């Protein structure tokens, strides 16, 4: 359907101005990314003690809580959108599938990059793949395996977009141009088989996501005597899964509004408003389980003990869950781009705060020497990784057909990328 739309655009006049890759914003991101890269190399050369504030009491810090745990959670838009649009066939949300897929693909890629900085022996990261080292008792083993497989699935799911970009317009430079028709026929074959089997991968992606999103919560269940009772619960894996599902669409909304704004496209208010309807329901389920769990465990009193942990819990719940439920239950706010953006940002922030709470705030080592606060370099690396992700996201969005509204296609000028639009005029398959 989309390629039909694209085809018609070719014959229209260009009403929209092309967007450039480099803007003041991207330059800032490049600087932050470069600073992060410097920090990353420093960590590799001089070790964790020199680079971080971690010690034997606080063995995990910012990189695990944000780069890894929050990164995985915020990539959940990939599987929730795929489930909604592809499995439940809510076709009106297809417009979000590709951006969400890209977010997930890059998100998980950077989860791995961030994790490598944190691992003492990052060069052994592949060890869990060896059957001789399999360790089925470990929740971390499951998380590791699922993330590795899911990352592969995400790249496979992205392949059709790459094929679509080049199919019919292979134009290799110089002597390689002899291979044009060969590559073209590969792409044709790839397109056919990918189309046929992609559903298998889409379903696999959803299953793998459910597995490791929840197991990420199981991780801290192994430390009962070190976890604050507001967060320590047997149902931590359920809460992690529910919050991942709940943050999926808000992340899509957040990212869609930002992308469109940055590319000077009109926001897709209609689809955004209607996908936002699900958010209060999903957040409500999450909140319900959280409240019931607190009550059953008699942990309610800890909410009112005035400790820093209890304040952090209240912010997590009020700003990250209750406020967006109220906001997005209001149809007027759902129709307003600003309202949608604020509500979505609150959910995203709330889930990040929840992961920080579970992995850092709730974790109370037995013999702390000093409290943990991330070092400047840890923060620098985290910001650098996020900036790099955004830069790559922008480049891919401007190179591959990820955004599918007519306006965006013209704004980023994919169809027109110094290549002949040959082959594009053929009827859609």
């Amino acid at each position: 359907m989309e390629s039909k739309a694209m085809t018609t655009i070719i014959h229209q006049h260009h009403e929209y101005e092309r967007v450039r890759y480099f803007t003041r914003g991207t330059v800032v991101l490049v600087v932050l990314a470069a600073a992060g890269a410097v920090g990353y190399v420093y960590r590799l050369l001089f070790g964790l003690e020199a680079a971080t504030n971690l010690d034997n009491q606080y063995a995990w810090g910012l990189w695990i809580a944000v780069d890894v745990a929050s990164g995985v959670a915020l990539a959940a838009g990939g599987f929730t959108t795929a489930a909604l649009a592809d499995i439940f066939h809510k076709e009106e949300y297809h417009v979000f599938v590709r951006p969400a897929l890209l977010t997930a693909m890059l998100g998980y890629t950077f989860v791995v990059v961030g994790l490598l900085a944190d691992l003492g022996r990052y060069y052994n990261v592949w060890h869990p793949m060896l059957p001789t080292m399999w360790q089925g008792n470990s929740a971390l083993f499951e998380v590791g395996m699922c993330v590795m497989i899911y990352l592969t699935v995400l790249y496979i799911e992205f392949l059709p977009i790459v094929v679509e970009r080049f199919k019919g317009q292979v134009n290799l430079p110089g002597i390689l141009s002899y291979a044009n028709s060969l590559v073209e026929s590969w792409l044709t074959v790839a397109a056919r088989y990918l189309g046929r089997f992609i559903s298998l991968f889409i379903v696999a992606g959803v299953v793998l996501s459910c597995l490791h999103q929840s197991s990420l919560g199981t991780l801290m269940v192994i430390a009962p005597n070190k976890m604050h009772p507001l967060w320590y619960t047997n149902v931590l894996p359920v809460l992690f899964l529910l919050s991942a599902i709940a943050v999926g669409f808000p992340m899509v909304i957040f990212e869609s509004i930002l992308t469109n704004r940055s590319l000077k496209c009109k926001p897709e208010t209609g689809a955004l408003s209607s996908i936002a309807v699900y958010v209060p329901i999903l957040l409500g389920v999450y909140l319900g389980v959280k409240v019931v769990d607190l009550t059953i465990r008699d942990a309610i009193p800890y909410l009112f003990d005035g400790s820093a942990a209890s304040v952090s819990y209240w912010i997590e719940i009020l700003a990250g869950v209750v406020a967006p439920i109220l906001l997005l239950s209001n149809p007027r706010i759902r129709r307003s781009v600003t309202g949608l953006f604020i509500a979505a940002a609150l959910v995203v922030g709330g889930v990040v705060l929840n992961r920080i709470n579970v992995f850092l705030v709730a974790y109370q080592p037995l013999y702390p020497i000093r409290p943990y606060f991330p070092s400047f370099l840890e923060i620098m690396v985290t910001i650098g990784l996020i900036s790099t992700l955004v830069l790559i996201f922008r480049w891919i969005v401007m190179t591959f057909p990820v955004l599918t509204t007519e306006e965006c296609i013209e704004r980023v000028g994919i169809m027109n990328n110094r290549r002949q639009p040959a082959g594009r005029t053929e009827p859609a398959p």
Partner: protein
Amino acid sequence: MAGTASVATGSVLADDHQTEIDRKAAFGVLVDTTLCLGCRKCELACNQVNHLSERPPTDFEDQSVFERHRRPDPDAYTVVNSFKVADDPDRRYTMKVQCMHCNYPACVSACIVGALRKDPRGPVTYDPSKCIGCRYCLIACPFQVPSYEFDDPVKPRVRKCDFCFTRIIEEGGVPACVAVCPSEALRFGSREQLIETAYTRMADAPERYSCHLYGEHEIGGTSWMYLAPTDFANTELPELGTEPIPRLTESIQHGIFKSFIPPLLLYGLLGLIMHSLRKENGKQSDDNDNTSTS
């Protein structure tokens, strides 16, 4: 006991279930803090046997270390600390800490690659060549014992007491710290017999001991067990229940992965939904067979 059942029957990954300890053959150490002199010879012996930090032996005679609380670290698998007796603050006693070598070690259960292993005879050992350096063992340990070489950028290791594995298992000896102990504060032997010894001592001199053998039942039992003149609440040994720490997470993991049936069921269910809904509304809107990505 769903946890035990699934651990015993094993998952798909059959050989990974936790090593059950061999109750008859399991070794242990009884630490009787009422007999501890606070001489720190155990620290010295440990340092030498394990080739830890290079320090002159006189370093270990310094009694001023008792003024602060120390914990095991990469340079010291064991440390002796001094504690007040609860009801008689002028009296103090000293206590050695090191890896407890749990019967159901959380670190072993947590380890993503099986770098930490439980020997059925007691010792929990570590193989640095497998380790990826995730430090989940430091998070999981209920005693906060394993330490990490954060300062090594190339080949950092997890560091902790290995119960002198080579000496006791391969050479049939006793741990270096026990061998050097000048009093009866440390006794090495069969864990079952040590429990008997402990109860005999408590029965013979009830005024000497608080009636609690720490480690007999804590989190399913530990190889190292403690007697003290007073409640353990004011020592560094945490108050723990009798349930093995990893039992809950293992039953969650094995529940999810029971023969891979739950994930496959979910896969089948989602596939079915995808297929049936496509037939319903697919005819008019989606005439090409491709899904989302095309």
